[in-house]
């Protein structure tokens, strides 16, 4: 082979390989797959950017899901995920403290609880009753027949069944037994009626959550409710406080006895339970029992990059220790405030 021919061959090879994407011209970055609950997406954008600034060799890929779906990516769907963060701490022991396969270890044996949230009533200046609603009369405003109320589908979103719990707890708190029916239950055919027995209020949902009138609107997730609120399709939405704040909405704070945000009232919350209309996942039951809203995070045992995952987790835990607008609140001291829980706890 002549020298020019050899040079040509090398040139062609190099050009071909480069155009086919077979050579990497930039240093390879470790891709860290992080699967958080939807209500963590806003803060995680900031955490991701700050973390990547400090660790340019790590590419954090955030993939949001509902909390149960986030866990299922690891368990039922067998994906190799580096970090899982959920809006309901109980899901990790319930769904992940199980063996990955016969004779194998659990998907995880620990989690760290790192933030908390509470339910609020979000609205805009244009909402019917916006000029008169207060923390004292909100339940009467929402009960008006001409006021439209929205919440996310309890089948799909923890915020959805928490909306039902808050409304049921409000009926008890304000001693107004008809409140649940006036705000939500009466919009279904047949009406949704809480059943009270042995100190527990139980709400059983139908298979299809389809309101029979225009007073109640249900959408798959929070973002669609916010869009509906913006467009004037509803007047009020049951949301997490951080989500309402993060989207620049007005909101009404609810009493700690009913807002699912106070660990001191955990015993009160437990007195309300929701039974979903069907078992959407074979791996998760249909009963949801009221409890404080606590966020939790773990690194699955089969995470492909455990070292980087723990680095990210520590970074996130540190970031969440500070109160920030639009973020779930830091865990304060008090009952049940321990940070890390293990299978043996």
């Amino acid at each position, binding site marked *: 082979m002549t020298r020019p021919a050899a040079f040509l061959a090398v040139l062609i090879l190099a050009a071909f*390989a480069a155009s086919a994407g077979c050579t990497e011209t930039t240093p390879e970055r470790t891709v860290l797959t992080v699967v958080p609950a939807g209500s963590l997406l806003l803060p995680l954008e900031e955490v991701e950017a700050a973390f990547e600034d400090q660790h340019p060799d790590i590419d954090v890929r955030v993939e949001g899901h509902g909390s149960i779906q986030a866990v299922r990516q690891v368990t039922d769907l067998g994906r190799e995920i580096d970090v899982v963060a959920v809006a309901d701490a109980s899901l990790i022991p319930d769904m992940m403290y199980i063996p990955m396969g016969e004779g194998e270890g659990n998907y995880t044996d620990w989690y760290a609880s790192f933030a908390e949230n509470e339910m609020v009533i979000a609205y805009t200046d244009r909402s019917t009753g916006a000029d008169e609603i207060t923390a004292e009369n909100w339940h009467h405003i929402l009960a008006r027949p001409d006021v439209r109320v929205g919440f996310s589908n309890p089948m799909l979103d923890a915020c959805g069944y928490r909306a039902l719990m808050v409304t049921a707890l409000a009926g008890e708190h304000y001693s107004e037994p008809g409140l649940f029916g006036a705000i939500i239950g009466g919009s279904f055919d047949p009406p949704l009626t809480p059943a009270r027995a042995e100190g527990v209020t139980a709400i059983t949902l139908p298979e299809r959550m389809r309101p029979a009138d225009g007073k109640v609107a249900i959408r798959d*997730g929070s973002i669609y409710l916010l869009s509906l609120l913006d467009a004037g*399709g509803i007047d009020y939405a049951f949301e997490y406080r951080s989500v309402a704040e993060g989207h620049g909405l007005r909101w009404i704070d609810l009493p700690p006895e009913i807002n699912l945000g106070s660990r001191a009232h955990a015993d009160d919350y437990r007195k309300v339970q929701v039974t979903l209309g*069907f078992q959407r*996942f*074979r791996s998760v039951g249909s009963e949801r029992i009221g409890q404080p809203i606590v966020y939790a995070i773990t690194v699955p045992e089969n995470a492909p990059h455990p070292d980087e995952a723990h680095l990210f987790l520590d970074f996130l835990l540190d970031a969440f220790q500070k109160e920030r607008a639009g973020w779930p609140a830091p865990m304060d001291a008090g009952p049940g405030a321990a940070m890390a829980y293990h299978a043996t706890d």
Partner: protein
Amino acid sequence: MIPVHRTAPALLALVLVGVAALVCGCLAPETAIEEVAWNLTLAGEEEEKVLTLAEVRALSPDEGYGYSVSTVGIKYGPNRYRGVLLADLIDMTGGAGEDDLIYVSAEDGYLWVFDAAQLRGEEFFTFDENLKEITAPPLRVILAYEQDGEPLAYGDGGPLRLVVITETPDVITEGSPWVKWVDRVEVKSG
């Protein structure tokens, strides 16, 4: 006759390019389309049938655009889907009454419940590209086996996935009913 001293380097270069491309996986031979072993159970109120994938494919097809969005706003699509109307499948085991519910379940343990109105393509919420709600155009519910002219890949929910289709590629529907890996459709009296 072509002079050898001119063709040899060019041929060598071509061979090298080919070898290099194969080594780095850029010229992998096209994988042959394999018929996947998959059974679909249709459970009517009085009758039950099991169809193979080939039998599903042999039924009268429908096609359209499918574009879904997850609960947190991640959009998937648009893609062109081909499959069988869910209503046609249900008719094979006696159909569904107005108050009946249709349980569509999957290999991975996922279940979604539809009512008769949804079987007709009604009562779904639809969105534009900016995820603003729009009035729903005519929709149809199919069990899709093809995406963009190719057999629906397992990673995309194949070989059988429930898909809500429209005539245009700019209509987004909520993703929760898009059950992946469907292996059972059951009618239950409501």
